[in-house]
């Protein structure tokens, strides 16, 4: 049996608790990350939804920007909404700094204000059929590089993408529901039937990466001479 991966959730601000709950539901162990020391103890990381400007200020003030950039270069990292903005190489509307690890251009608040927020159901290449997607003051990936795999789109724009160890969604998979018979508008709806396929997919990315890291370590140990080969692709 594969070990349970420890997946960090960047907990400076935002809906980190929703992500932690989602991770528990896919048999991963969530761990809140607010410092560089905490970041070193996790196998993968989720950068949640929230305000990307707030994330940036706190990352800079806490000296967490460089360690996070380094982590995201090699380890499985998943950004949703604000997290996706942080991962993208170029940010527009307005322009702002980012970790720049995903070869993509992202436009902030591209669909408008809160009143334009929407829940839609779109096709995805993840198994299990169409996926419900919650877009809240969402950004839009206006361009992605050729090395970026598109896992789902909305109106012709990618909304769920993967580039090697990076996964990014412009919507909130932590809030996705499976098809539910009633949407009564009662607060009961908030906790009904979560759809955890995206978190499941990311947890598998983390398990695979940890396995590859183990394999390369044991391969190195068995070699008679020291090598400088790293695990980087």
């Amino acid at each position, binding site marked *: 049996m594969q070990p349970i991966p420890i997946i960090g959730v960047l907990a400076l*601000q935002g*809906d980190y608790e929703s992500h932690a709950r989602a991770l528990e539901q896919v048999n991963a162990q969530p761990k809140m990350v*607010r410092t560089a020391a905490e970041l070193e103890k996790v196998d993968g990381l989720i950068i949640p939804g*929230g*305000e990307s400007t707030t994330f940036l200020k706190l990352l800079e003030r806490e000296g967490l920007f460089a360690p996070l950039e380094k982590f995201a270069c090699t380890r499985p990292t998943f950004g949703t909404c604000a997290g996706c903005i942080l991962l993208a190489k170029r940010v527009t509307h*307005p322009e702002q700094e980012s970790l720049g690890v995903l070869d993509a251009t992202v436009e902030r608040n591209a669909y*408008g204000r809160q009143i334009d927020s929407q829940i839609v159901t779109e096709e995805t290449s993840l198994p299990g059929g169409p996926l419900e997607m919650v877009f809240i*003051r969402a950004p839009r990936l206006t361009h992605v590089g050729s090395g970026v795999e598109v896992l789902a789109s909305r109106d012709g724009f990618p909304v769920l993408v993967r580039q090697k160890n990076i996964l990014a969604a412009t919507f909130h998979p932590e809030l996705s529901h499976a098809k539910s018979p*009633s949407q*009564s508008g009662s607060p009961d709806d908030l906790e009904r039937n979560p759809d955890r396929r995206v978190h499941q997919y990311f947890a598998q990315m983390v398990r695979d990466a940890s396995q590859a890291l183990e394999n390369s370590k044991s391969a190195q140990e068995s070699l008679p001479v020291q090598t400088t080969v790293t695990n980087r692709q």
Partner: protein
Amino acid sequence: MANHQNNGNANPESGHGLRLKVGLAEMLKGGVIMDVINAEQAEIAEKAGAVAVMALERVPAQIRAEGGVARMASPAIIKEIMAAVSIPVMAKCRIGHFAEAQVLQELGVDFIDESEVLTPADELHHVNKHDFKTPFVCGARDLGEALRRIAEGAAMIRTKGEAGTGDVVHAVKHLRQIVKDMRQLTVMSEEELFAAAKDHRAPYELIRMVAKAGKLPVPNFSAGGIATPADAALVRQLGAEAVFVGSGIFMSDSTHLASIEEATSRARAIVRATTFFDDPKVLAETSAECTGAMKGLAVAAMDTASLMQTRGW
């Protein structure tokens, strides 16, 4: 009353509506929402790391000092602030004033605060918040009040505290009350829950949900008198999921603005303290970074007629 079922809105709430409204509130968790009265203050707030700003004509301390009828801010000010920042913009309407709420929704504000800080427009009814696409936040002093607002469609609850005083004592009182009320529900039998619904004057269905989850079905923030980084950390440790700071950042007393440097240092320090609310080392640093705090008014020395928290029912 007959006509106010739909408030003229084309899109009364669907099941999706509530999830989108609460969804935005979820994204604001762990953050600081700051009161601002112009574009310059809004930019300072955004640069300091605020997750949202509340667009106002006067902050609560000024409203308290100047008196008169306090109403929704003028659309010109709200638009100026919306144009200045990329973070969500909230604005306040008077309790029960659904026409002001319609105006705010039309302007495109991201959250409406049906607020006791403004002069109430209706002595019996709050706005029917289900009728709006824009999410609402409402103040509460105890669990029953919080659940009545949620039943009306609020997507976020905040403690009322006592706005514009810089005295955190009633934010603490209200938060402790709500947390205690919720904890008591979690150990009650079915029969006791029916009785609790009556005692709290709240819908049984919501009482049952809180009993099961141990928390409100919508995010629970704190407001009203928070003025220092340690105040923010205090309410966070008591269970508030995010913090509203009103007069405490930009005012030095109830009529004078703080300097820009002072306001910036307070805003940055309170943002940091809200994130690292349980780390005394960071709290000591942020408290040292922060220059001065508003002079404030002690709530205990105020007469009951000047309290804002008793507005709303």
